[in-house]
Structures are given as C-alpha cells and as structure tokens.
C-alpha cells in the first residue's frame, strides 16, 4: 500500500532552512500569518511563458524590512497589532526581474491574485534604499514602484471587505475608458484621474488614489492637483478646474470612507507612510 509520506513534493518543497527563512518566519509568519516565497517556482508566476529570473538572496531581507516599514508599521500604528494579522495579504512571491510579454514586449510590474491574498513583486534585483551599498537616488524609482504596488494591492483588500461609497464612481462618471493604455498620465490628470490606470475603471481608480496619496504625502499630492492648470478644455471637454475638483472630491470620499468604515485617520496614515518612504530615499 503506497505510503502517503513518500509522495514526492506533497506539502510543498523542502530545503535546509537558513537565515533568510528564519527572518521570514520571525518577522512575517509568526506575527501576521504571512509567508514569503523567494526561491523560484515557475508555477507561482502569473504567466508561464515569460522569462523571469529569481531574486538575489542579498535583496530579500532588505526588501521585506522595507515592506514592514512603509506598509505594515504605518497601518499597525493607525489601528492595532491584530489588524495586519486579519487583513494583511498572506502570500508574497518575490522575483528578481521584470515580467515581459514575449509577443508584445509589454511588462507587468506587480500583480495580485483575484482574492487579494497573493502579491507578486517584480524587479527586486534592482531594489535599493539609502541604507544599501551602491544606492543612487535614481534607484528610488524602484522603491516608489514597490511602495505603489503594495499599497495599491492592499487598497483592494479594503474595498473587498467594505465597499466604498457609490459616489466615488460617480465623480469620474462616463470618463472611465478601457482604452487606458493609450492615455498618458498627463491626459488622465487633465480629466481628474490620478493616473492612466486609474481611468480604466472605478475599481482601479480607488486603489490608485489611495496608494498615490500615501506615496506622495499630503504636500506632494496637493502639488500634483494644484499643478493641473492648463487653459481651455481637455479632449474629453474637462477644464483644469473640473479636473482638480474631481480629484479633491475623490480624496474627500476616501478620507471619509477610511474614517467611517475602518476608523483610520487617513491623513495621519499618509504622514507616516510618506515619512517612512523619504527616510529610505533621501
């Protein structure tokens, strides 16, 4: 009779554990029930036909440590120590390179599975912060992208647990478009969308707003909105004043939603996340 214990690979791959595994266990698994897969497994990738290489070992702990400081710690400070255990994403897949479609060359940077539990992070071999050897300020673009992806995906978790007000989608009205890849970020802003991806649908507008507000900080975000000052109208008939107004309305809806549905002071959270980010860049 075959012994179930002899079935190869059942229960997952095994290997002799090292310092990285201990760090993951102590920092993420014990406190938050989260796991991190950093050793390459083709079947964890979104696309099986793409060339993706694994992460460099020396990047793993810096990446996870940064994740804690820009994401877990700020939210925990605004809620409580159990918040992340309940709502935090449970599976993180770390990869070293970008993910490029062999047919079109288009890239996908950061992904989440439909239930929001698995987050796939890319290009981590280029991850660098001020405290890491060889850091140059231009490296901060990777760090910003990393921050953006993680906070964007986490915002989906909020929306999935408690729906945000319908009024949010009404602000953008019929300006959402499935052709968002052909819209530039500048054009999107001229219609009152924080990014072209935000203009694809309300379901992405919400996490884009949340993540970019947390990334830019209050003064940075204000500067973006106040910088929308073109004259005349956009292709879709918006004026700069209308674009600014739409962004402010959505900002207000988000702040109210976080307060009323989650008891989170969004502006306080924003101060924390922005401070954590700038400490790693400058």
């Amino acid at each position, binding site marked *: 009779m*075959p012994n179930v214990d*002899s*079935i*190869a*690979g059942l229960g997952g*791959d095994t*290997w*002799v554990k*090292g310092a990285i595994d201990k760090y993951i266990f102590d920092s993420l698994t014990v406190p938050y029930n989260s796991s991190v897969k*950093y*050793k*390459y*497994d*083709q079947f964890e990738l979104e696309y099986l036909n*793409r*060339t*993706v*290489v*694994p*992460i*460099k*070992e020396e990047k793993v702990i810096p990446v996870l440590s940064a994740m804690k400081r820009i994401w877990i710690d700020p939210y925990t400070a605004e809620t409580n120590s159990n918040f992340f255990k309940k709502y935090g994403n449970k599976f993180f897949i770390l990869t*070293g*390179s*970008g993910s*490029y*479609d*062999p047919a079109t*060359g288009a*890239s996908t*940077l950061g992904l989440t599975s439909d239930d929001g539990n698995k987050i796939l992070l890319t*290009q981590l*071999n*280029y991850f660098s912060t001020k405290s890491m050897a060889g850091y140059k300020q231009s490296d901060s*673009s*990777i760090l910003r*992208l990393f921050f953006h992806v993680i906070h964007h995906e986490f915002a989906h978790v909020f929306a999935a647990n408690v729906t945000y007000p319908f009024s949010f989608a009404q602000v953008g009205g019929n300006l959402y478009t499935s052709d968002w890849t052909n819209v530039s970020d500048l054009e999107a802003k001229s219609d009152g969308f924080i990014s072209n991806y935000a203009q694809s649908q309300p379901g992405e507008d919400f996490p884009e707003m949340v993540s970019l507000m947390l990334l830019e900080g209050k003064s940075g975000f204000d500067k973006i909105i106040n910088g929308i000052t073109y004259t005349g109208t956009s292709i879709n008939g918006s004026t700069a004043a209308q674009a600014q107004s739409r962004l402010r309305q959505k900002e207000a809806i988000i702040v109210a939603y976080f307060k009323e549905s989650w008891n989170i002071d969004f502006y306080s959270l924003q101060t924390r996340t922005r401070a954590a980010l700038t400490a790693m860049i400058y």
Partner: protein
Amino acid sequence: MKKSLLYFLVVLAIFSSCKKNDTSVFSQTADERLNATLSKYQTQLSGAQYGWKGIVSPAGGGTYSFYFKFNDSNRVKMYSDFDSTTATTIKESSYRLKALQQPSIIFDTYSYIHLLADPNENAGVVATVNNGPVGAGLISDFEFYFDSTTVDTIRLIGRFNGSKAMLIRATSAEATAYNNSGLAAGLLINKILTYFKRVTIGTQIFDFNISIANRTITFSYLDGNIVRTFITAYYYTLGGIVFTNPLVIGNGTITGFSNMQFNGTTETIAMTVNNVASTITGIVVPIKVDIAAPKRWWDFAVTNNNDYWTSFKGFHVNGLDDAYGISRLTSGTNTYYYLIYWPAYAASNDFFGPIFLNAARTQLTLIYGTAPAKPTFTADGRAVFVQLGNYGAHPTTGAAGLTRTKLYNSSGYYFVQTSATSYDMVSALDGKSWITWNF
C-alpha cells in the same frame, strides 16, 4: 445447442477461476522510485568532493563554462566565464531538486547561471545584464531536468528553452585551479593591446582578432599564397580558451589555447597549443594587408548617395573603448550623438567631426569639424589623413581635440572590412588604436 452450452459453461468456469493480480512490474511504487531517483542525483551532485565543471549552451547560442560545488543542504557555489568578476569571485546561492514532469534541478536564487537567462529591463528601470533583447536575454535556462548520467557526467536539458548543460566531475587539481582564478586565464588576451594578434606555434603563424563581446575569434593564415580566414565561437576554460569549432590546418587540429600566462615586460602571452609551447604577440601589420580596403571604404560612401560613415564609440586606444570619452561630449545644451567621416563632403575635402543632438532631442546638428583632404592611399594599404582646415570653432583639447589629432597621425591607418557595411580602421603607428565605421 448442447455443445454451445458446454462451451459457455467452460468459458464461464475459466473466467470465474481468474484471480485479480495486483503485482506490478516494479517492486516499488512510482513515488518511491521518484524519491529514490532524486536521492540518487542528490548524492551524486553533493558527493563529488571536488565539484563539477559545467558547460552550458543556451538555446539562444554560444557556450559558457562554469564550476559548481554542491553541498547536501541546498547550497551551491559557482564560478562562470561570463566576465572577469564571475571567473574569479565565487558566488553562493541555493538550489533544490524536484520531481516535476521529470526529476529536475532548480537554481532557485540568483547567481551566475542566471546572468545568461536574465531578461534585462526597459520598463521602470533600464538594465543590460547580457546583450540579449529585453524579455528574452540569451534564451537560456536555470531549471534543468536530468537527461542522462554516468558516474562522472551529468547531462541536463533546460525546462523552459531546452538549453543543454553538461557537468563533468572535477579533479582536485581542477578545483584548486578554479579557486585560484584559473578560469580568468583566457581573459589575458585583453592584455595584448593591438588589434592584430599573432599566434606562433613552432613555425606556424596565425593572425587573429577577437571579439570579446561576441565571444568569437577570427583567424587569418597563409595557405601557400592564399590568405584563409576561419571564424569560431569560443568559451573560457581553466588556463585558456576552447574553440567551439576547432581550426583544422593541414593534418593538425587546433582546439584552443592552454596554460596561458602574460609577460608584462615583453607584452606577450606564453601558452601551449596541443602541448607545444606557443606565443601570442601583438602586431601592427597583419599577415596579409587588404591593400584596396581604404579606397573601397572611401568610395563606398560616395557611390552610395554621397553619404557618410558613423562611429558611436569613437577611438579605442590602449585597451579602452571610447578612450577619449567622446560619448560624453557636449556643446552648450547639445549632446554627442555620433562621430562621422564624410568623403567628398566638399569639392576638395572630406568632413570628420562629431554630430550633436539638440536639447529637445528632435534634431541632429553639425557644430564644428575638421576638413581632411581626400586621403592618400599608399601602396602598402594605408590611408593617411592630412588637415586642410576646420569648420566652426573646433576645440583643441578634450574628446574632440584628441579625436582630431588621432585622425591626422602621420602613420595612417590600415582598414579591415568586417561586413558589407562596416570597417575597422586600425592605427599603423602601433596597432593599439582603432575605430569602427558603420554605414
């Protein structure tokens, strides 16, 4: 009727007397056999006391050599001939064996073997790890399935692209050699600074030039009065290099260069070829000069729409590409785009100078340059350039100044045609400077 009933009863009896037999062809279950196979491979990999030499042939072409030392705790250390760092600095990473469709080995954290497969980046960040296209890299693998093994060899096939890899059990001497930068010996060729290099094996002479970027070597040798050329890819090995395609001459075969050592005083390399002591020296004049090449180069531009030759990197001098830093040249807000040589630019002179890109990056512009006379094409195959004048305010120093001075060196230049639309222009002064022209 009775007979058929009898037959029926007999058949019934036979069938009812069959016993279900569970005995399988194998004495163990599929899982037990899989585990045993994986265990066997693990023992072979980590049991090799001195590690393994590896040859990896990416599906995208080329051959690269490695050294691997596996332990039984999922750790592997390796060297690679990818570049001078990977050849001399051992790197540790992790691996695991897994029963996928076939028993497989996965190099599951980043190391030298991944440099071949790296897709490079052009979104979010721009990075060139290998010179392959973004999204594909060199079309290699880092997950392999076991194809076949003997006691001292393991053949692997890449799971994603089908690259081939072969591991050969290393000896104690080989392991020591790897740990003492033995894999970097072939890179000594870079210490010969001339464009033309000559191998002397007894009385045989071969000239060659080597493309480190493409990992190819082109030989020229005399066969009676005829110059023959032979090109092959190569990879690095302990003590030297190995040609992917051996050079066959007469009844001898040359498979590579071994035991390479550089003599800094004479600037020559001592080595063995088929166990015969040989040398590599730098030479200025190649075995056979393409005497008509300079004029051919000049005429080609005129015949093809009165156009010009371009060079992005400018002069290579004494071992350095873009030795004068011309790629960083600026003029006001304009930035360097490329260097051009324009034959018959005017009725009585050519044009040589940098072309700039404007600040808006919408237009190429000519700001200054020098006006050489039509070059003299010598009987021994050189072009000699002489200055007639200048255009604009030509700098006398810096990258532009140095480049101009270099062109007018009185020794002139030999030309080597490398393709229908490219030539290398090599200094006849010492052979240690050259520039590549493209059309």
